[in-house]
């Protein structure tokens, strides 16, 4: 089998990005069909990666001098990235039509950012990781400040950029320490060289580990590296916020998992301690601060921080490579990422639909949404319940798998903190439901909300999948259990 076909999903994303960008430059007339071209690119990429996942035998290996890993774990994130790209493009259509004229640039950056998520997930070398990491960061900065006449957006982009560059720099420093200790940038080689390492040299690896976590923590919005996120989420164009909240976090988790499991398996005890601390902080702080938020984008930002904390539990509870474990931390993470993807993007779709109509993101403006659009209010309930983790929705399956993994590895303390947090989270998610259903509506705001086709497609699809993953979870769990192959050299 030619290796090249494993690059096809990425190449398609990249190619469609170049096409969208290039065609936009030719001629001065407005090209209304550009978003559809971008959409077609992501759909083709999704189709190819699904085909590769389901019908092509994957030989786990690294290629191109150990730079790139080919394994089912990477394929999972190819699917993830293409899915995110497609949904974000659909979410952007109406929103961007009204606010910006430079469509080509916008969609090509969305494609580029999605491409870098998938590149990040296949990187098996520190240099490659850093390149992909920066590619994702830079395209995210640009997207955040894309509406240049919007003061809040520009402020958000600058904050994000300042914070991100410091985090990247620290991560790079950590990488250099790791290189200094092991004389290699290849993850597999690093693991090998670390396995028999002199105990005095371990003291160089610890700071390297912490510095690496600064970078990964910033991408996965783990407390205390989360400070950029509420401002960036609030200021960014809402579809971009959705991208940051789901896509960017997914990319962060992909690389965090690969580095920890294949690069630093000998330091598992140490990174488990570090990550469980981050997880506890993220869950607790994210949830407590989310309670007092009045803007729904900020609330979703803080809730995303808390959700990242739950996902980190899965990594902490990773029980090694042995098979046959029902509650396995890694499959917990992947299923959680999937359910989080559909539920959170669905929630953002509703936020965008409301914002397009009434131009506000205040939670109090969701009052009486059930009267203005039963579809929006009804599906929003499903998304929020999934984020709480109520059975019947995908969120429950995610929580069951992650908490089960924690119990399985006897991290009872983490599991208990996680459930306390789940109850706290119930409060602010219900607050939105309260406004939508219980608050009476002011007379002038009684207008119905009409949905465009692209938005209703996203909302109905994500809602259907949220319920499907809760009720017929089996194929989805099988899917993630088939995605656990990580090439370890």
């Amino acid at each position, binding site marked *: 089998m030619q290796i090249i076909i494993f690059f096809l999903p990425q190449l398609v994303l990249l190619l469609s990005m170049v096409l969208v960008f290039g065609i936009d430059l030719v001629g001065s007339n407005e090209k209304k069909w550009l978003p559809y071209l971008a959409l077609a690119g992501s759909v083709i990429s999704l189709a190819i990666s699904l085909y590769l996942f389901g019908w092509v035998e994957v030989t786990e290996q690294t290629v191109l001098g150990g730079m790139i890993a080919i394994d089912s774990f990477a394929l999972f994130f190819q699917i993830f990235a293409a899915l995110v790209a497609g949904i974000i493009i659909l979410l952007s259509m109406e929103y961007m039509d009204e606010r910006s004229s430079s469509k080509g640039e916008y969609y090509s950056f969305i494609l580029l950012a999605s491409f870098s998520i998938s590149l990040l997930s296949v990187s098996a070398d520190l240099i490659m990781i850093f390149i992909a990491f920066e590619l994702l960061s830079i395209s995210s900065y640009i997207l955040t400040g894309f509406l240049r006449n919007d003061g809040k957006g520009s402020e958000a982009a600058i904050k994000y950029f300042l914070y991100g560059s410091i985090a990247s720099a620290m991560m790079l420093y950590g990488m250099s320490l790791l290189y200094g200790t092991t004389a290699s940038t290849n993850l597999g080689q690093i693991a090998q060289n670390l396995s028999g390492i002199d105990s005095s040299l371990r003291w160089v690896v610890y700071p390297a580990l912490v510095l690496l976590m600064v970078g990964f923590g910033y991408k996965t919005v783990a407390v205390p590296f989360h400070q950029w996120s509420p401002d960036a989420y609030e200021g960014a164009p809402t579809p971009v916020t959705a991208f940051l909240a789901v896509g960017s976090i997914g990319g962060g988790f992909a690389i965090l998992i690969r580095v920890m499991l294949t690069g630093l398996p000998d330091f598992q005890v140490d990174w488990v301690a570090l990550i469980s601390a981050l997880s506890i902080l993220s869950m607790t702080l994210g949830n407590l601060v989310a309670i007092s938020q009045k803007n729904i984008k900020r609330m979703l930002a803080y809730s995303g921080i808390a959700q990242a904390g739950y996902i980190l539990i899965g990594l902490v509870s990773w029980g090694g490579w042995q098979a046959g474990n029902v509650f396995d931390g890694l499959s917990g993470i992947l299923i959680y990422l999937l359910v989080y993807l559909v539920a959170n993007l669905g929630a953002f779709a509703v936020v965008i639909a409301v914002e397009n109509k009434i131009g506000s993101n205040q939670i109090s403006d969701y009052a009486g949404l059930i009267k203005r659009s039963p579809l929006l209010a009804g599906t929003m309930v499903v998304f929020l319940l999934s984020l709480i983790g*109520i059975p019947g929705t995908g969120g429950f399956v995610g929580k*069951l798998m992650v*908490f089960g993994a924690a119990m*399985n590895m006897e991290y009872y303390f983490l599991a208990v903190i996680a459930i306390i947090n789940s*109850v706290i989270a119930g409060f602010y998610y*219900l607050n939105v*439901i*309260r406004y939508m259903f219980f608050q009476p509506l002011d007379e002038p705001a009684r207008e119905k909300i009409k949905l465009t086709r692209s938005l209703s497609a996203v909302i109905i699809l994500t809602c259907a999948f949220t319920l499907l993953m809760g009720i017929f*979870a089996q194929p989805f769990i099988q899917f993630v259990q088939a995605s656990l192959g990580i090439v370890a050299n």
Partner: protein
Amino acid sequence: MNFPVLSAITFTPLLLALIVLIIPKSKENWIRWATTILSLIPLALAIYIYIVVQADPGKMHFMEEYSWIPAIDVYYRMGVDGLSAIMLVLTTLLSTLCYYYAIYTIKNRVKEFYFLFLILQVGMSGVFVSLDFIFFYVFWEIGLVPMYLLIGVWGGERRIYASIKFFLYTLAGSMAMLLAIIAVYLETGTFNILEAAAAQPFAGNFVLSAVAFWAFFIAFAIKVPIFPFHTWLPDAHTEAPTTGSVILAGVLLKLGAYGLIRIVLPMFPKPFAYFSYNVPIIPILAVISIVYGALVCMAQWDLKRLIAYSSVSHMGYVTLGISAAAASLALPGGGGPEAVTSAIIGLNGASLQLFTHGIITGGLFFLVGMIYDRTHTRQIKDYGGLGSKLPYYYGIVMVTGFASLGLPGLAGFWSEFFVFRGAFAIMPVYAAIGVLGIVFTAAYILWKIVQFIFLGDFDQEKWDRVTHNAELTDMKTFEKVTMWPLVILMVLIGLYPSLVVRLLNGVSTALFGNF
């Protein structure tokens, strides 16, 4: 393959909910009547199950088992024994009555109301038939959301506060239960409730089994509710719409007690016995619930809140009965056959109380709703002398109230009698204190309800002032139709308790046969 009766009884309401969703909003009457009439199907199935289960109530019938999520060992498992059958009859009966009553009383957002209520019924029935922990948990939580919305949309003045309190309390309990379920799975390797109970998880390690026991116990205690986890109940009951209160008191509280009997007692007999006898935390909490609940009723002037607190008190009998049964296992020397008999009687009383309290308090909440719809006040002092004006209503309230205070010849008597007959033999001190509750109950029903509302002279001027000239009409036909099935059951069970007890006794005997 046999007809899947249990799937049918559980998911018919779901099908109805989807039908309701399809019927256009403008056809409100279609929604109302279609739901009410079609909800007779699950009721008929429940009665059919009740008849079939008579043959051997201690065993599981109509078992269904399909693989659901094999990747994590989760099965679609259902089965009914005598206890589940009785609870199914209660659930389907009260649901149908609520649909019928709501035809005349719910005027706004009819479609949403019926949709949510039907989903709620799915959750309740599902809990009583599922035999797989995850499956059980799914149904346990499904009921939460519609109830939250029912209180929040159709409730009284403080409905928002009450609804969120209800949701968070229950969520907290069920999250603890989820961890305990996972722990039991990791210990026994199965989510099957019966097999897990037979495997006696953590039997060798008292500390672990005690932790798992408390995780389950607190989850169920919040729902029962047992003091000090009861504070959500008065708010939720008071603010909920009439039908919501009926289902809350009638069925939802029973879910907790059902969990104690079905899951906690068989699976953790040792810690349950230990905390009932050696370190008697549970009977103390039960007795506090009984006496404290009754005392609050004495001081309560809001009629609906009074009934709500009476539920705390009456559900305390259930806890006392179950804990007496558990305590018998810790008696020195096993206590002999006499102790086993007493334990079974106590457990029968507790299970019977689930049913009788369901129909009696369900009825009381209907009755409160009826008077509130006329007067729009719930203050007991605003009424007075209604006995002569509303004789029919007076009569029905008398029967229901007397059933509630345990008058012999009516349903409430037998469950209380059995509970105390069992408890006196095993834990006489707590039983003796608990009996005080019966005295107080008689006091507040006779004094507060009968005397203040119905006796004395009717004062037209005061009536006009507090009710803003409400019309004084006696029970309407639909109200009579709603109440009569409940009243008939109260009398029937009062005269012939074996109707229900035979089934429950089969379950209790089978349970104690395993110990």
